[in-house]
Structures are given as C-alpha cells and as structure tokens.
C-alpha cells in the first residue's frame, strides 16, 4: 500500500480533488437517493417501507398526470427539435464556409440564455389577454383570443410550442459537423447515376447521419424529461388543474414544499429509470446498425 502510494502518489493527488467531490456530491447522493425512495422520509428521517412509495405513485393522479405530460412534452419536442436541426443543418451545409459560421452562430445565440428568462418571455407572449403577442398574431388571422396558460386545455400546448418554436442550435452544429465529414465518393457515385439533390439527401445523407440522430434523440429526450423551469415560470408550477405539471416540478413541490422526501425520491428514481431506458435503447439501435 505505502509502496503504491510512493509510486503513484502524484496520480492520486491529481485525481483527489475531483474524485472526492464526485464521491461526496454525486456518487453517495445517487446511492442515498435510491435508499430514500424506499423510505417514508418526511422532514425528519424515515422508516423503511419497501416499494410502498412506488405503489403510492402508481395510484396518484397528480403523478400520472406529471408522467403523461412529461412523456408527451418530450415526444413532441424531441421529434420537432431533431427534425428542425437536421433540416437546418442540411440547408446550411452547401453554403460557403463564412455563411455556415454565421448561421451556426445565429441559431446558437438564443440558446445561451437561461431557461428562466426564456420562460419569462414566453409567459409574456402566451398571456391570455388580447395584448398577448400570440393572441395578437393569431388575431390577425381571425383566430382566438386563446386562454393559453390560463386554460387547462391549452397551457401544455403553450409550453410545448415555446420549446418547439426555437431552432435547436446545438443539434444544428452537431449535424453540420457530421455532414461535413461524410464520404464524398457516395455523392459522386449518386451524381453519376443522375440522382437529384433531394434523392441524395434522402438516401445518402439521412441514413449516414443515423449515429448523430440517435445521439441527439437520447440527449434531447433526457433533457426534455427534466423540463422544469418552463413549467415553473410559465404556469406557476403546474398550471390550472395541474395541466402542465411535470415530473421534476412534482419532485420539487413534493420534497421542498410538502417535505415528503421519500415520495419525491421515488419520483426521481422513476425519472432515472426513464433516462436509462432511453440510453439503452440508443445503445441497442447502434448495435443493430453494425449488423447490416
């Protein structure tokens, strides 16, 4: 042991600060989170109650609503984001290098802002009054006014629209880099066959970008599962009749407003499992990719 320390002391010194902080504030908390999920932990400690918290969740209409909203939000938003990123990156690619740099920056700029202030603007845009911008814009088409965040039917739609209406700049950059590194020979061969630009895109570009697509689907899905600030700000933490409640919003209120830490930890475990399932699904489809 001491010999190892003398030989490798520097290596351990180099990893020590990061690794000890990682153990204390990530590794232990993950383990403790799993334990808390099996406890009836209230403001002060808790007793072991097995899987009872998960039974409570299964019967809890608010949690079911949160789960359904989160999955619906993630499905629509991720489908839109990945499609938009692919289309925009494909449009940018044939342009000159300077245009590419310009457009990547243009599409990334809106994303440097915090979820909080973005949600504040969307709340202002989707407010239910005639002076709300969304209502005014639709009003010129003879539609509305809509109640948006003031209505249990439309609040989730407003939250989803706020996410869908922004071009996902990160995805554009990743797709753009991936398209740039695709082998040119395939396109030259397709040119010889007389394939048009759309046919080349459809039959060469899109299939070859599959690894990037899968990566983006996974990352965007896991991020979408964690949607919180939009709901917290746009709809005061859940909207009318819990119309926009999401899992993280419910974790926050269950733990830090109602002191039911065990139950909230069980919700966090559900979220964790959802993230793992998505990651495994990606791994699987990448593996089948190799097979043909």
């Amino acid at each position: 042991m001491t010999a190892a320390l003398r030989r490798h002391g520097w290596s351990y010194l180099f990893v020590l600060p990061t690794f000890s902080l990682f153990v204390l504030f990530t590794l232990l908390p993950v383990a403790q989170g799993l334990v808390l999920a099996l406890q009836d932990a209230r403001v002060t400690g808790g007793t072991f109650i097995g899987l009872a918290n998960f039974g409570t969740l299964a019967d809890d209409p608010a949690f079911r609503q949160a789960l359904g909203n989160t999955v619906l939000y993630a499905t629509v938003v991720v489908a839109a984001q990945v499609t938009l990123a692919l289309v925009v990156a494909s449009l940018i690619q044939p342009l000159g290098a300077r245009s590419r740099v310009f457009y990547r920056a243009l599409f990334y700029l809106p994303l440097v802002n915090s979820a909080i202030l973005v949600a504040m603007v969307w709340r202002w845009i989707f407010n239910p009054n005639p002076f709300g911008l969304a209502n005014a814009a639709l009003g010129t088409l003879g539609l509305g006014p809509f109640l948006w965040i003031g209505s249990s039917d439309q609040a989730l739609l407003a939250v989803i629209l706020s996410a869908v209406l922004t071009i996902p700049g990160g995805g554009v950059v990743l797709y753009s880099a991936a398209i740039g590194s695709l082998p040119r020979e395939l396109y030259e061969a397709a040119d010889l066959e007389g394939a048009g630009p759309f046919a080349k895109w459809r039959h060469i570009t899109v299939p070859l970008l599959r690894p990037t697509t899968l990566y983006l689907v996974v990352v965007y899905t896991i991020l979408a599962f964690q949607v919180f600030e939009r709901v917290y700000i746009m709809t005061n933490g859940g909207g009318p009749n819990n119309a926009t409640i999401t899992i993280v919003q419910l974790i926050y209120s269950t733990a830090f407003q109602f002191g039911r830490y065990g139950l909230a930890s069980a919700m966090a475990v559900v979220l964790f499992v959802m993230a793992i399932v998505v990651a495994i699904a990606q791994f699987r489809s990448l593996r089948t990719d190799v097979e043909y």
Partner: protein
Amino acid sequence: MSSIRRRLPVHVLLLVAGALSLFPLYWLFLTSLSPTQYVVRVPPEVVPRELSVGNYQRLFETTPIVRWLVNTVVIAGVITAFHLLFDSMAGYAFAKRRFPGKDVMFWLIVSTLTVPAQVTLIPVFFILRALGLLDTYPGVILPGLADVFGVFLMKQFIQTLPTELEHAARVDGASEWQVYRHIIVPLSRPALAVLAIFTFQRYWNAFIFPLVILRDPAKYPVQVGLATLQGEFNTDYGMLMTGAAVAALPMIAVFFAFQRQFVEGIRIGGVKG
C-alpha cells in the same frame, strides 16, 4: 452568379427561421425599453414608437438585481476557476498516467454522466444540511464542483497530446507538478477555454439547486432572483422583461466574445444542458 441566385431561397428561409428563433429575445428587449405605461397595448406594437429607460430605473431602484448579478458572477466564477484546475489535473491523470484503481474510478465517473441532476437534488440537500451549509455560498459552490463532464472533456483532449514533451521534461528533472503545470496546462489551452465558457454558462443559468439551497434573497443568483420578481411583479411585464434583459445581457456579451469556443464546445462535448 447563378449559384447565388439558386441559393437565395435557402438564405431567405434560413434568415426567416433565425429571425423567428431570435424574436423572443427581441421582444424581451423591446418590452423592457417601452415606456412603462405603453408596455401593455392592444394590439401589441412590434416596431417601437417610443423608447425609454424608465423600466431600468425602476428595476435598479426597487430590486436587488445588482446584488444578484454580483452573486452570480462570484458563484459561477468560483465554480469555473475550480473546474479548470481540478478537471485538468484529473483529466491529465486519467489520460496519461497509470495507477491502480484508475479504470474503476473512471468507470464510476462515466456511469453517472446520464444521471439526471434531480436524482441527487434531495440527498445533496440533506448532506448540505448535515454539514451546516444550507443557505451559504459554499453550499451552492461545492455541489457545482462535483459534475464530471469537464473531467471527461479534459481527458479526451489531453489524450491527443504528444507524450514526448513530458518525457523530455522529466529527463530534465522536472517534478510531476511542473510537468502538469508547464507542459500539460499550456498545451490544453483550447480545451480549457471551451471548459471555462461551458461551465460559466451552466452555472450562470443554474436554477433548481440554488433555489433549493438558498433562503436569504440577498444571496440569490440572478436566475432565482428573477423567479421571485415573477411572484412580486406578477403582471408588471415591463419590470419582468427588464429584469430578464439585465440577466441576459452578460451571457449574450460572452457569446459574442467567445462564439468559436461555444461552437467548438458543442462539437467536442455534445449538447450538454
């Protein structure tokens, strides 16, 4: 010439998409600069008739926004500084050095990369409470030092550096620390720049952890402060948009100053939060 004409529709389409994407930001600044009595108009005016800094005066006079901005710079700045030091040290060890337990440690780190942050929120809250660090700056900063994305980034980068320089320095009698400090750190500048930008942005925008850990409004970072403005000035959109504008400006300035690092960072690190 013909290629420009052919590409014109593409440019128009992309510019329209970009304008739509940027529009909320434009609307934010426009609302903040409207005279208070004209913020609410039917129909809303997308092109301003009159601009005023009245909302900004009200904001700075009636809210601790300056204090919140200073808090955010301190919190995000300290977290970033420690990440640059610790992540480059650990990244160097994982990339270039051999020691017992290395693979297990790195595997543990990688295996937590997909864990949603909310999973650790409640236990971290308990740990900080046990340490007496709730409602303190160290309570917000310490958990921020535990995210391991930077270790991963630095390891990937340092792996690509040539090993000969290190050997040469050791032959010349350099200590292990000097090898790290005078060979690895200077060569890692591009990755460190990306890490600095990403970390600063991440903690400038952080919300749920400080929301849970801090109680005293004087300690709030700006995002948490903004959320409390929302409660206080519920429908005073002039005030709310001005607060949001003041919080947005520093990040936008950072973006224009370091665009290349942002784009480079996504390419190296993926679309992390």
